[in-house]
Structure formats: structure tokens, C-alpha cells
């Protein structure tokens, strides 16, 4: 009950702020931070719970963004249809990637997901309809409820973040999460104890992929522009992976904490210093955390709580 009231407060709060007269930049940055929450949470469903490291986040985000673009160009679909379409396609891609887990584990799986990025990017570059290598300029539809379109997108992203986190929370607390944790610790042992490992992995891959795709869907409208090089940028991977690891992978709150801290920090560093250094911040924090605090912030807090008792 407490969780659901908190979710409601977050959505209403953000919608409330969107009605207020706060500076537009705040929303531009807020969108990125909320998107980071979705990406980190989605990544963690597969990476944190099941231990399969997906380096191919931009493949899913890009697939989502370009599905949205396609639906926009072909049938002038409204945003909600674009998001659902993106989630559907990225979910199917996730399912196919899940089938790879039958044969591939560890780094082999991770490298296969990197391959997806470049294959999708090449397909888009060679597709004139989707703008090719140069990309497409888009006109946004008129804002509906809020005074400008970005504000509406921020509220949409907030809803998506709540959906993503709720799904992750449900998965973690149900038999699915227990099964996935067993897969992470020892796939053979899990299989022998009757855990339906393949079914659970496919489920995790599909849900994770669909959420990543959905998070990418509003991108074309958010930027009113889309081009392959930045859409399929490997930087999405390092962020989506660093946030759960820094926050803590074992609990759904970990990716949320990690995403809020890192994405906010990135926005501050980008504005005050430079966009290159924000990548350095993520890289260094990631390396420091995996070496010094592999259980992330959640792990540090747990340790601090038990030692202070």
C-alpha cells in the first residue's frame, strides 16, 4: 500500500510541476533522468536478477525509437500507440535474444548483444524511409494538456518509470525473481532443482527488452530529430549498466537510486563542465564501485545498518 501511494505521489507530483511555470530546461533534464530510471530498471531485470549482462541497450532503445518513428511516418500514430508498438517490437527482439541464452553465457552473450547494435544501426543507415545516415527532422504535434510538448513527455516518462519499477518489484518478489536469482547463482543447480530456467530467462529478456524499447519510443518526439549515430550510441549501454551496479543490483530500489544519482550528476557535469567528462564520471564511478563496493549503495547501506546495530 505504501509503495502504491508513493507511486501515485510521484506521478501526481511530476504532473503538478508540469503545470507550474518552472523553467523549461528543468523538463529537458527531467526527461533524461526519468528515462535513465526506466533504462536502469529494465537492464537490471535481466542483468541484476539473472546475471546476463546486456551491452546492447542502444539496440533496444534504437529499435524503440525507430519503431515510433515508423508509426509516426506511416500512419501518424499517436504517442501512446508509438510507445506500445515500440515495446512490442523490442519485446520480440528481447525474446529472440533470450533464445540465444540457451547457448551463450557470460561474455559471449554480452558480445552478441553488442552485435545487435551495429546490425540495427546498419539497417537504419541503409533505409532511406527512416532517414538513413543523416536522419530526419520532425514536427511535433500540438501539445494537448500541458503548455508545451516536452512537459507532456516528462509526465509520460514518469508513468513509464513507475510501470517499469513496479514490474521489477513484482518480478523480484514473485517466484520469477527467485528463479532468476537461482539462475544467476548457478544455472545447472537451478535446472536440476526444477526451476524452469529457459522460460524464466525468456520472460526476463522479453520484459527487459520491451521496457528498453518503450523508453526509446519518445526519443524522436523529444528531440524533434532522429539520426542513427546518436540513437545507437554505446553510451546508453554504459549508463544503463553503471546505474544498477552503483545503486545495487539485488533490490529494485538499487537501479532507481543509481539512476537518480548518476543521471542528475551527468546533467550537472554536462551543463557545468563538458559532455565528455560526464562519460568519464560514469566510467570512473562504475570501475570504483565494481572494485570497492560490488553490492552498490544498497549493499553499503545494508552493511552500515547491520554494523550499527
Amino acid at each position: 500500500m505504501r509503495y502504491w501511494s508513493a507511486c501515485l505521489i510521484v506521478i501526481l507530483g511530476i504532473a503538478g510541476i508540469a503545470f507550474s511555470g518552472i523553467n523549461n530546461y528543468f523538463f529537458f533534464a527531467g526527461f533524461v533522468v526519468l528515462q535513465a530510471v526506466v533504462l536502469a530498471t529494465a537492464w537490471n531485470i535481466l542483468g541484476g536478477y539473472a546475471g546476463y549482462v546486456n551491452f546492447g541497450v542502444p539496440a533496444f532503445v534504437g529499435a524503440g525509437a525507430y519503431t515510433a518513428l515508423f508509426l509516426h511516418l506511416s500512419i501518424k500514430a499517436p504517442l501512446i500507440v508509438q510507445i506500445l508498438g515500440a515495446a512490442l517490437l523490442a519485446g520480440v527482439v528481447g525474446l529472440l535474444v533470450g533464445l540465444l541464452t540457451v547457448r551463450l553465457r557470460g561474455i559471449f552473450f554480452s558480445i552478441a548483444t553488442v552485435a545487435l547494435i551495429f546490425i540495427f544501426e546498419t539497417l537504419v543507415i541503409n533505409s532511406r524511409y527512416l532517414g538513413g545516415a543523416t536522419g530526419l527532422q520532425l514536427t511535433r504535434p500540438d501539445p494537448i494538456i500541458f503548455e508545451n510538448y516536452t512537459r507532456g513527455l516528462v509526465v509520460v516518462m514518469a508513468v513509464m518509470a513507475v510501470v517499469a519499477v513496479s514490474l521489477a518489484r513484482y518480478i523480484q518478489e514473485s517466484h520469477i525473481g527467485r528463479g532468476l536469482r537461482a539462475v544467476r547463482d548457478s544455472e545447472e543447480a537451478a535446472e536440476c532443482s526444477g526451476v524452469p530456467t529457459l522460460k524464466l530467462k525468456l520472460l526476463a529478456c522479453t520484459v527487459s527488452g520491451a521496457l528498453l524499447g518503450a523508453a526509446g519510443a519518445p526519443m524522436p518526439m523529444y528531440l524533434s530529430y532522429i539520426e542513427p549515430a546518436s540513437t545507437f550510441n554505446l553510451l546508453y549501454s554504459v549508463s544503463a549498466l553503471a546505474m544498477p551496479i552503483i545503486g545495487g543490483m539485488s533490490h529494485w530500489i538499487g537501479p532507481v537510486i543509481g539512476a537518480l544519482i548518476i543521471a542528475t550528476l551527468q546533467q550537472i557535469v554536462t551543463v557545468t563542465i563538458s559532455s565528455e567528462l560526464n562519460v568519464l564520471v560514469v566510467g570512473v564511478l562504475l570501475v570504483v564501485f565494481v572494485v570497492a563496493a560490488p553490492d552498490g549503495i544498497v549493499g553499503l547501506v545494508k552493511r552500515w545498518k547491520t554494523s550499527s546495530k
Partner: protein
Amino acid sequence: MIFSVDLLIEAIAFGILLGGFYAAVSLGLSVAFGLLDIPHVAHPAVLVLGAYGAFLLGQYGIDPIVAGLLLTPVFFALGAAFYRVYHIAFESRGDSAAVNGLAFFFGIVFIIEVLLVVFFGVDQQSAEAPYIGGSLAIGEMRLPYRLIVAFVVAIVLASVLSTYLSRTFYGRAIKAVGQDESALRLMGANPVKVKQLAFGIATGVNALAGAVLLIMAPVEPTMDRIYIGRTFCVVVLAGLGSMSGTIVAGLILGITESLVLMFLGTAWAPAVAFTLLLIMLALRPQGLFGR
């Protein structure tokens, strides 16, 4: 495009030379990942670092190949020191190393990229040497000298490594450590020391391979990303840890890419390595010459 035999022969000749180059840039990974099972995703980033090292020395008029040879001991030491950190932080801890170890190397990739951007800028940098630019004409066919240089370096490097690994005590120990660590310990060799040596070699090789990369084409800091596909494709195709297999796999990738380049166009070329890799992973992850 009109199909012609001349064009096909030229594409294959070009592909063979390109393949030698791909083998050269993959040899280090073949040792680090193939033999030691270290998920060295940062290998291509280190490669680009090597290229920039050669570029830096080139500013003082040093030939790229000579620069690569000069940097090899430096990279060897760096690699050995780096392995120490990796070992203490991950291998000695044992559990949960899978996700964190991968994330560690992935983080290193971006740290190297940003440092290169900060020191050298995002612009492309290239080297100067007498053999860059010219080409050898055989009948109608023109083969760039830089490709020939890359090919020769690759063959020499692979032969030296292969001989070292099969003929010397430490070389054999490196081969053994990937197969059975405890057996090696029983033979009185320290597996950590052996792995440190091997990772040093894998990194040292990258200095020279990086120089070859600089000879082949202008370099830029995020160039490593495309080479994740190419190097892992070669190593997986080769079957983990086989040096002669690495050459053959390099040739397969080089020829395929060259054919795609010539008959489909440049825009499709980047996907070749990744597609081959994906097919290989799905059908035969142990590689063509796997153990």
C-alpha cells in the same frame, strides 16, 4: 554493378591483406580472452590507445612500426600491472565476478575513450610514413603498401607468438593455465604469475597492433567500438586461443568484408563482422578450430 572476374580477384586480394590486418589486431585478444578466459572487452580500446601512442611518437618523426616496437615494453608493463588489479579485485574474490568483471572492463573502455578525447580531441589523427599512400601495381590491380605492411606485421607477430607459446616453458605454461590451473600449480608454477605474464604479452602486442591500426587508417577515440565486433569475431571464429586459427579467421573476415565492400557498398561493411559473429555464436560458439 557489373560483375567481373577482375573485380572479384581484386576484392579477394584486398580481402586477404585486410584479413592479415584483422588478425594482427586480434592476436592480443586471442591470448587474453582465448587462453586466459578474461572477458577483455577493453581490448579494442587498448588497441586504439596503442595507435595514439604511435601517433604521439610520430610527432617526433618516429616511424609508426618503430614506435609500436618501442611502446611494446611499456604496454607489457601496463598490462601486467593491470592484471594484478583485476586479479585482486575479481579473480581472487571468486563469486559474482561474472557481471562485475564484465562491467569493470566496460568501464575501462569509456575511461580510455574519454581520456583520448581530452588529450587528443575528437578529430581524426593520422601518421606519416613512406609506405602510407602509395600502392603496388600488379597488372590492373593496385594493392596499397600500407595493407602489405599490415599483413607482413601480422604474419610475423603471429609466428613469433605461436612459436613462443609452443616452444618455451613459459609459453606452454600460458597455454596450460587456461586449461587447468590446479594442475599447473602442482607442476610448481604460480598460475597468477603466468597469467600476469600472458596478459602483459597480450597488452604489449596491442602496442604494435595499434601502430598497424594507425598505418591502416586515420584513428579517432571512439574507433574501438567497431573493433569490438571485428576482434571478437576473429577470436570466436578462430576457436579460443589458437594463433594460426586467428590468422585464418582474420582472412575469412577480411575477404567477406572486402566482398561486401565492393559489391554492396561501404554502408553495409560495419555490420559484416557483427553478423558473422552472431551467426558463429548461434551455430558454433566453440569456433572453427575450437578445442
